[in-house]
């Protein structure tokens, strides 16, 4: 865990501490009904986003390339996008539950980043094309949007449950309206679908151009767990949006489906690397960076 260079480690610890404190403050905001914390939460979120960007720059400097290859970078970009969405929407949505929900989502993403933290890696020679940048950015954006949709879905389902069971006192004035939560969920799903489509198209472009260089056949691509899961998620998203548009799916069903799709996409991004065998991995360890991290870890162990 946290196999990072010393400076990266310090910045990352800063993000973890900020995120943990924000989550505790968000809890306090709800428990004590203290609306003043909201401004502090947005300030801390902006600091967190800034530190995330600093960390990405440090990684870019370390490998002297655009840092899009590693899973750690993907999660960091996810955090930056979610953080920016939160900061943008907080100008219009001042309910305490919204800021608390987004703060907790950011904390979960930070914890996820801590689990997958690895030294920066460079791209394989064969994968170095403009398609990769479009593909990686689109996929990460799709991930950020589906996480946002899932966060809104959770708030929607919880509010709906409270309102239906007539225990709505804790919600009044503190939670965005049911209509707004449903609309934000759909917005997240639509944006996720669009960016996922971009990601798939650019992925197909990459395969068409560099498939031979990457040493993978069409069969390999079609059987790859990550590719299959993303394709399933894309079809699921399309079906969900069409059925909702045709008034077959209600807001509740859309929210539940968003949660399933979020799990599917995040599993495809992160889980498939850990639990399944995926060849969809074009990074190459940088021996210099790896040895630097190992020597730092060894020094730390000796010191203890």
């Amino acid at each position, binding site marked *: 865990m946290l196999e990072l260079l010393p400076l990266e480690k310090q910045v990352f610890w800063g993000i973890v501490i900020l995120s943990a404190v924000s989550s505790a403050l968000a809890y306090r905001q709800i428990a004590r009904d203290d609306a*003043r914390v909201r401004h502090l939460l947005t300030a801390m979120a902006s600091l967190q986003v800034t530190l995330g960007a600093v960390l990405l720059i440090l990684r870019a400097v370390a490998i002297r390339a655009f840092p899009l290859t590693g899973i750690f970078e993907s999660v960091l970009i996810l955090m930056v996008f979610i953080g920016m969405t939160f900061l943008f929407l907080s100008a219009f949505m001042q309910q305490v539950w919204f800021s608390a929900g987004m703060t907790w989502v950011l904390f979960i993403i930070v914890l996820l980043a801590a689990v997958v933290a690895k030294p920066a890696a460079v791209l394989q020679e064969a994968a170095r094309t403009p398609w990769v940048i479009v593909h990686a950015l689109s996929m990460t954006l799709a991930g950020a949007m589906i996480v946002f949709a899932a966060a809104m879905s959770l708030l929607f389902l919880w509010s709906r449950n409270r309102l239906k069971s*007539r225990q709505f006192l804790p*919600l*009044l004035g503190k939670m965005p*309206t*049911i*209509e707004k939560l449903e609309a934000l969920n759909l917005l997240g799903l639509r944006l996720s679908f669009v960016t996922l489509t971009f990601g798939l198209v650019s992925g197909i472009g990459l395969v068409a151009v560099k498939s031979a260089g990457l040493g993978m056949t069409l069969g390999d691509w079609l059987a790859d767990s990550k590719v299959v899961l993303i394709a399933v998620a894309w079809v699921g998203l399309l079906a969900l949006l069409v059925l909702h548009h045709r*008034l077959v799916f209600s807001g509740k069903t859309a929210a539940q489906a968003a949660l399933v799709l979020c799990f599917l996409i995040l599993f495809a991004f992160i889980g498939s690397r850990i639990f399944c065998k995926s060849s969809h991995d074009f990074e190459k360890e940088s021996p210099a960076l790896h040895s630097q991290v190992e020597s730092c870890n060894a020094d730390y162990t000796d010191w203890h």
Partner: protein
Amino acid sequence: MQIILIGINHKTAPVAIRQRLACDAARVSDALTRLRAAYPGSEFFLLSTCNRVECCAVVDRAAGPKPAELAKWLADFRAVEFSQIEQYLYIKTDEDAVTHLFTVAASLDSMVIGESQITAQVKESYKMACTCQTTGKVLNRLFHDAFRATKEIVTRTSISNRRVSVAGVAVELAKQLFSDLQSAKVVIVGAGQMGNLLVEHFRHEKCGDITVVNRSRQRSCRIAEEHGVADTSWDRLDQEIAEANIVVGAASAPQGYLFSKDRIKLLMRRRHRILLIIDITVPRSFDPAVGEIENVYLYSIDDLAQVAQDNIKLREGDMELAVGIIYEAVSAFMDWFQTRQVGPVVGQIKDAFEKISEMEMERFFVGPRQEAHCRGQMEASIGRVVNKLCHCVIKNIDTLSRERSPGEAERFAQHILDNAQQIISEDQKKNQ
């Protein structure tokens, strides 16, 4: 300086008395201008609402008007016999007056605690006093502190945002469901008292599309005219509900439910919009099973009354915190006010000490000693002694102010001044 507050409110006086003392904006302005002319050097503020008439003044303790005098002036101004209002009046001074004003501004003394209207009215009255140039350093500071304390109460407590009436909770609930309540279609089924009240509440929230449906068209017409909303015949009820976002069930249904689950389900067919139903009739006119339909949120009068009750309890819980904020703000203000008071008293002490020394010198240089050449040197020497003793006294007052409180320091300084003035008056009597 002394802060005086005189007034009557809904707790002390019936409406008949309150309305005799009440003033409109022009009269308030006139009263303030006259007060300024009658008592120059004093500060005045006059608040007149339907629930209270209060006058606050900052006057010179010795030379300024006394509270009773001010009360009589106010009665005369409104051409009311003072004896008729005397029993309803309350007079508060200094800390009590400040606490009362802070409490009023924060809406903790209102008929409905937490309503924001009174804060706006106090602000308006303060602006009026500023325009009439009847405020000074003390009242300016007092009202700025009061508004700051009110803002803190609004931020830190939920006193002002909890609805405590059934109709208020219904509107709050609608705001939790719909992003744009103003464009929501509201259908009021029934034209009873409660339906009328809900029309009023939804109109207050600027709902533009409200329709009243009643079995007797005459009554629905009357309500529609009264509030400037639409009304329609009972035959169109289903069509109205099918298009509605909010339905208020206020028509009694003695023979079973007026709306069954199947009927509402049929009306909700092929629509994904949310439908909020508020059933305020007893016995209920909507089958409770209607609430099971997706996108339908059904609430009875009991559900709303329960929330209103919970809100009252929560408001009471918040009152303790709000009162704490008020006391902190009052204490900070009184510290500032009393520190301001000590300055002139210290000056008076110095004058009194110098007077004593002058009197002693006059007593000494009589008869043959009158022409003594050392008189100048002695006067300078006694002057230095008096200054040094004065410095000791001022230092002690300052220490007391810092270590105890400005109030205590002021009392101590006043005590020294009283003693010094007593010595002077005794000496003057002896000399006579």
